[in-house]
């Protein structure tokens, strides 16, 4: 629509609907600003000049940004995350899994959320702990370093004299971790002296030489090529590290560790392992070029067990090297500054190597134990037991024995001998007494039948028919859920809470008559028990209703004074 200043129609578009803006470059024929709506339409504005257009453009940009945010924050401000909740896929999955595992939870969910009484968010708000538990159960495992040592047996091409080595970033990481001298060399040489490819070629050559175990050739090549020498010689940095580690061993914990465990400084004879091949005594000039397999293995094992110390992407070799160097430096610095730790260690050593017999007696470093007399506790328990059994008379009566022990034993023995000589009385028991006893027992048992189940461990719920039991339990859990939400929405401050409370109250008033029905449907002999069970549920509901009614009354009384409600 062309610009017609005389047209009476004014364009009024809310910024909320404008999603984006486009503009022509400065210096082109026309200064245009194109505002696109999310429904697809767009408005094109033509300006007189570019500066004006640019001012408008900036304004429009900020306005769009603002309205975008505002659109998102409005629902949050009402303090209610209703249907706009952005759930991630993981969260949805967790919830579904939880519902699948727990059928009671599923029933509640179906009843309330799908029934429209509670919203999803409210339902799950109180169950965050369950969701978290589920989530954290999944172990977060990281892949550790590979344990296989980089094979020094390269792929040798049978036909030509070429030997190929394969280097992946993973392998490079391991090389840097195991051989600090190589890492240092990398940082020094690349990219100043040689390219990465050259570096690795040299390194591979060194490895090849080592694999042939030809020490003399190694020495010869090292003499020619300075850089190669670095790879062939012993790793000094490693040596220092090992030494430091030994010094840090706490003798109070590991008495055996000593200088002998320093595997880098031992002579190359693999200790204990039989050396079956050449015991050729080489010139001392060749010593540095030997490499011991056991040393290599130890170092490799130490690195693997340490795991991944850095989190850098493996692509860039240089950054990996630097990161490793940084970690090592940090460790060094920490150790150097840990004088306090050293002092503490010395103190502990001196304390633990004390000979106890030669020490002066020391005050016990513990507070004396004060244990109460168990009789206090027991006496009260006894009183309980008696009161339950209805033994009011003799509970307090103490049996008095005014006879000395000897006499007591005498009478006991007399009784025994009496029977021995006289035999059992005939009849054993008087028939009237027996009859009375039998009657009394029968009466006792029959009167108890209606109070309890077959054995005292059984509860009343088990004696109900299954359907009733399930219903009762379901009602109980639903009432609990409803009451929880109901009471948490008081005091009512917003309209949302008011509607929520009303909804909950309606749901509760629906359950109320169901409970009454259950009470009536049960058999007559169980009715008393069931009504005892149902009573607290009804009481809780009544309390909630009373509170609701009182609140409604209050509110209507208050709003009577203020015509515009709250």
């Amino acid at each position, binding site marked *: 629509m062309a610009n017609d200043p005389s047209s009476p129609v004014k364009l009024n578009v809310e910024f909320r609907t404008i999603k984006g803006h486009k503009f022509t470059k400065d210096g082109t024929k026309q200064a245009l600003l194109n505002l696109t709506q999310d429904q697809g339409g767009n408005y094109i504005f033509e300006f007189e000049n570019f500066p004006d257009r640019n001012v408008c453009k900036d304004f429009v940009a900020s306005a769009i940004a603002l309205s975008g945010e505002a659109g998102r924050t409005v629902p949050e401000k009402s303090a209610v995350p209703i249907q706009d909740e952005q759930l991630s896929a993981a969260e949805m999955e967790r919830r579904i899994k939880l519902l699948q595992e727990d059928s009671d939870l599923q029933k509640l969910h179906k009843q309330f959320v799908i029934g429209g009484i509670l919203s999803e968010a409210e339902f799950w708000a109180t169950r965050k702990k369950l969701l978290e538990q589920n989530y954290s159960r999944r172990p977060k495992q990281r892949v550790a370093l590979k344990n296989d040592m980089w094979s020094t047996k390269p792929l040798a091409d049978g036909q030509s004299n070429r030997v190929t080595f394969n280097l992946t970033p993973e392998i490079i990481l391991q090389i840097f971790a195991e051989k600090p001298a190589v890492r240092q060399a990398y940082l020094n040489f690349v990219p100043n002296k040689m390219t990465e490819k050259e570096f690795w070629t040299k390194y591979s050559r060194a490895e090849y030489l080592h694999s042939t175990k030809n020490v003399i050739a190694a020495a010869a090549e090292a003499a020619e090529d300075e850089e190669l020498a670095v790879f062939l010689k012993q790793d000094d940095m490693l040596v220092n590290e090992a030494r430091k580690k030994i010094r840090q061993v706490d003798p109070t914990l590991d008495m055996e560790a000593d200088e002998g465990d320093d595997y880098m400084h031992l002579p190359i004879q693999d200790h204990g392992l039989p050396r079956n091949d050449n015991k050729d005594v080489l010139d001392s000039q060749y010593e540095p070029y030997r490499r011991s397999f056991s040393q290599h293995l130890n170092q490799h094992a130490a690195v693997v067990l340490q795991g991944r110390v850095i989190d850098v992407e493996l692509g860039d070799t240089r950054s990996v090297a630097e990161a490793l160097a940084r970690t090592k430096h940090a460790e060094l610095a920490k150790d150097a500054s840990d004088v306090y730790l050293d002092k503490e260690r010395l103190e502990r050593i001196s304390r633990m190597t004390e000979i106890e017999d030669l020490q002066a007696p020391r005050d016990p470093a513990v507070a004396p134990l*004060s244990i*109460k007399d*168990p009789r206090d*506790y*027991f*006496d*009260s*328990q*006894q009183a*309980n*037991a*008696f*009161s*339950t*059994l209805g*033994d009011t008379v*003799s*509970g307090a*009566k*103490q*049996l*008095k*024995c005014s*006879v*000395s*022990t*000897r006499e*007591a*034993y005498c*009478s*006991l*023995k007399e*009784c*025994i001998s009496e*029977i*021995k000589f006289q*035999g*059992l009385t005939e009849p*054993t*028991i*008087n028939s009237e*007494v027996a009859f009375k*006893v*039998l009657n*009394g*027992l029968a009466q006792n048992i029959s009167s*108890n*039948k209606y*109070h*309890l189940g077959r*054995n*005292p*461990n059984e509860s009343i719920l088990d004696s109900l028919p299954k359907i009733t039991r399930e219903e009762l339990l379901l009602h109980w859990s639903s009432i609990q859920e409803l009451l*929880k939400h109901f*009471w*948490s929405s008081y*005091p009512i401050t917003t309209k949302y809470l008011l509607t929520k409370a009303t909804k909950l109250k309606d749901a509760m008033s629906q359950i109320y008559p169901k409970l009454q029905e259950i009470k009536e449907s049960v058999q007559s002999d169980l009715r008393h028990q069931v009504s005892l069970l149902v009573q607290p549920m009804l009481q*809780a509901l009544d*309390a*909630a209703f009373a509170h609701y009614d009182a609140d409604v009354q209050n509110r209507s009384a208050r709003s009577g004074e203020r015509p515009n409600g709250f």
Partner: protein
Amino acid sequence: MSPPVPSKILTDDVSLLMVLIDTNPHFWSSIKPHFSFSKFLSHVLAFLNSILLLNQLNQVVVLATGINSCGYVFDSSSGSVSQRAESLLPKLEEFAENDESLSERDDDSGNGVGSSLLSGSLSMALCYIQRVFRSGPLHPQPRILCLHGSPDGPGQYVAIMNSIFSAQRSMVPIDSCVIGIQHSAFLQQASYITGGVYLKPQQLDGLFQYLATVFATDLHSRNFLRLPKPVGVDFRASCFCHKNTIDMGFICSVCLSIFCKHQKKCSTCGSTFGQAKTLDPSASQQR
């Protein structure tokens, strides 16, 4: 022990009954006017003989619970022929002699009735039962019957509870027949936990009838019978400060002592408590 029994004969109503008789002389002399030990013995002996008559393979073992010692006084399976219960009398006399010799001179007279060593005899009964369990897959079903009258000794509480739990684990019911004046809290708990019967006869001269009606049935038949049981066992705790029975209270997290009111310091272990959290009234839930 008796020779192994072919499985055809060992039906499921064969029982091994361990009877623990209270021979506390102080108790028996204090109860003398109402009920004498000799009458008691005659009822019990008749009962034991009738148990042995119920089934050819039934076994009865009697332990005497004294105040200084406990001992076996009768084992129906010892000897080649099943013996009558009267043969326990000489052994019982011997036991009483022994028990007397163990007691200290110049004992407390008029000091009230002491307690007998129930924990000891319970343990001995359980050991015998364990031996029977290990004798092979075919054995009678064991149960324990306590004929007890002495008051409960608080010092034996832990030992008795341990025996009770051990009996529960081995699924051995402990029946109790309390002949004393007072109820026994220990035996009440024992019978409740192990699934046995607790009874305090109202008429002691009808003791045989009580024993025959209630305690003679084997474990298998008990599934079809209704036996008397107390109305309920009170397991409620009592607070340590006032000895009142309470349903809800405060518990020290260090030593588990129970108090009815909030306290600053635990009186048993001395640990200090932190501030109690006040409940948010809007979030309180009514039960």
